[in-house]
């Protein structure tokens, strides 16, 4: 009886692994079962620069864009654009109060929450001026399928004067965005993109490669050769995050820095602290690279609790981290994925309705917060809650600061 049960256990596991192995018809993917899949994982993790997420041309362009001088008013970075190619929008010109529709991927993290508040405040301005009569929002809660339905519903209703889309996943939303373009309404895509150029304008900061490279270069510059860096990541398979890591991995692999591990944390502080603590038990960690700053403070505290010196740290422009950074005076960088980009789509819609030209690809500036800017940014945001983003770009909106402090 026992023996047959054990055999069954083996058979069942084998069957599962077998099905796993059978199903991989991916041309470039090695067949994976239990062990082979593990090997594949290691291969993939070692070859960031060769991974499917790494496109050399995009990488080069983004790194170059970091030093480019953007066109537009310097005090309004959300209206600046890097190397714009303008398209004509006269066909969309419209008078009177317009209905603006927004399909949002989600508000499931503080970065998106902050940005969405900024967007709503910008909408209030245009409502006051009578340019927007109605602002409709569909939130897909990170479900691509629901977002496809949301976009279809906007198209179906037919009364949107412009459709703004913040896609949840690049590849999967492409058909739905193309369908929206075909409806003849102006479509504005921002944040993550889609594999199409049918929209009037695609708004985004420089991008994930630049973000990852900013942090990686900072670590390489500030660490001795041979230092050990731990990479903390949110979750696998999300393009913007994978690009960040691909760039960092390339830079690390070309330097004398050793990456001791890359871990997926889900942005959960408890998990981050646990993982960092474990790495510290195994040996020293000299630097931390993060693909998004959620939970950065927990990582810093892990060093404090273990009685280790502070690492060279790459966080984000999130205030809880920046306050910790100021308090501890460690060597750090606050990478920025420009949160003010949430304002731009509304202003782009305004321009399009006015028949003004807009950039076909509207690349917003994106520059990290360094030790020199730190105090200024903290002073400017001193009343903001801890999970707020320093470069949110809403200081001149009428709702400031209550809309963000009392959200």
């Amino acid at each position, binding site marked *: 009886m026992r023996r047959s*049960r054990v055999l*069954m*256990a083996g*058979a*069942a596991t084998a*069957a*599962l692994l*077998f*099905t*796993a192995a*059978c*199903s*991989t*018809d*991916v*041309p470039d*993917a090695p067949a*994976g079962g239990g062990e082979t*899949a*593990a090997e*594949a*994982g290691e291969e*993939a993790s070692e070859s960031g620069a060769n*991974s*499917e*997420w790494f496109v050399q041309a995009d990488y080069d362009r983004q790194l170059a864009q970091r030093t480019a001088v953007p066109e537009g008013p310097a005090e309004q970075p959300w209206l600046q654009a890097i190397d714009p190619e303008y398209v004509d929008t006269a066909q969309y010109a419209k008078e009177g109060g317009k209905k603006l529709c927004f399909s949002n991927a*989600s*508000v499931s993290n503080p970065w998106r929450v902050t940005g969405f508040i900024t967007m709503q405040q910008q909408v209030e301005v245009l409502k006051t001026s009578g340019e927007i009569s109605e602002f*409709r*929002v*569909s*939130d897909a*809660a*990170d*479900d*691509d*399928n*629901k977002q*496809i*339905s*949301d976009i*279809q*519903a906007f198209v*179906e*209703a037919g009364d949107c004067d412009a459709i703004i889309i913040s896609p949840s*996943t*690049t*590849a*999967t939303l*492409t*058909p739905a965005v193309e*369908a929206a373009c075909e409806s003849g309404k102006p479509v504005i895509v921002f944040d993550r993109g889609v594999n199409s150029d049918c929209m009037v304008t695609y708004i985004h900061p420089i991008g994930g490669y630049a973000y990852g490279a900013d942090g990686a270069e900072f670590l390489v510059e500030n660490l001795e050769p041979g230092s050990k860096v731990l990479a903390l990541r949110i979750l*696998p*398979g*999300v*393009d913007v995050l*994978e690009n960040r890591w691909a760039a960092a991995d390339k830079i690390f692999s070309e330097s004398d820095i050793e990456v001791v591990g890359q871990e997926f944390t889900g942005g959960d502080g408890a998990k981050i602290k646990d993982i960092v603590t474990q790495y510290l038990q195994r040996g020293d960690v000299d630097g931390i690279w993060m693909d998004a700053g959620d939970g950065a403070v927990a990582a810093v505290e892990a060093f404090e609790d273990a009685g280790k010196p502070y690492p060279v740290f790459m966080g984000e422009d999130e205030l809880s981290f920046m306050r910790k950074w100021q308090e501890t005076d460690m060597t750090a960088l606050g990478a920025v994925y420009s949160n003010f980009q949430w304002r731009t789509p509304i202003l782009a819609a305004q321009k399009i309705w006015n028949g003004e030209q807009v950039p076909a690809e509207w690349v917003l500036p994106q520059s990290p917060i360094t030790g020199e800017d730190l105090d200024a940014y903290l002073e400017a945001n001193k009343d903001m809650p801890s999970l707020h983003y320093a470069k949110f770009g809403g200081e001149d909106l009428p709702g400031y600061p209550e809309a963000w402090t009392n959200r």
Partner: protein
Amino acid sequence: MSTAVSTASPRAGSVTSGPRRRRLGSTGIVYLALVGILAVSAGLVAAQGGSFFSQGNLFYLLSQTSLLGFVAIGQTFVILCKSLDLSVGYVVAWSSLVAATTMAGDPSRIWLGVVAALAVAAGVGLVNGLVISKLRVNSFIATLGVGLIIKGYLDTQYKGPSGEIPKAFQGFGYTRIGPVPVSVIVLAVVMVLGVVLLTRTRPGYHMFAVGGNIDVARLSGIRTDRSIILAHVLCSLCAGVAGLLIAARFGTGNALVYTYGYDLNSIAAVVLGGTLLMGGRGSILGTIAGVLILASLDTVFNVLDVSPFFKDVLRGAIIIAAVAMYARRQIDPASSRARFRALGRSVGPGSGPDGGGPGSASPTSTTGKEATR
């Protein structure tokens, strides 16, 4: 409403008893709840000057229905057998990837992709069924574990969306006839097949019997293991169809589909539809009503522009309230818990909990649960 009658489960011989009338009532109440929610939704939307039953809203409702519908139909088979499947989300994700990578944008490989995706799904169902019936691992842990195994595989193997679905097959996700998406027609076919299986065939009867009381079912000569394995294979196959639909809508496969909560939502839909989590009672038409209730909520929240956080609050409260409406009714007055129905009669006042299940003659009180962990 009369269609609900036809799904009244076969009472599966000796296993479950109870007046037929109450079952009709149970499915009936589910549809009443659905009508109520639709009426309230229509009223609220009308108050804002809109029409809930506009073509766009109906289309939204139906396309939200079809995807969860496939998964929930599959989940119904499993829950009827007093099991459950937490791996469905991972199966949906995996089959979408298998379909997309197999088709690789080539229209001539559509059927190959469909067969490959369904084969993978069926394979997972077989493993689930074997682990649960042969290894006697509790279905919760078994399917959770299998789900984790698939998650590990998907995360390692596919970094993000992969593969390409040919335009011809994307029609499965986008084509519609009037306001009715093709996927809903396919859902209706699957639903009819499921209803026929459960109400007109021997394997269907056996599922009710196994869910009602597995020991009695076994004593009656039913090969209970087969029923459980069959239910799990069917469940995973339905999830596989959902994966095909996802792939058709996305134009590619995506591993992160497993974060969409189909496991949780499908179980909620099945229970909303009046199927007992303790097994042995329920119907596919009820499940469809449960799915429609959830999809109606999604639609009305969307039309009314409800804040995403408030949506969760309302959804949670409505699910509890809806189930509370008919939860009492579903339960035999003779017993406060349905799983003791067969037992209740043999246990008189005064006898301890050691009364044991049927078939447990041993004084060591190894009632059914002993080996189910």
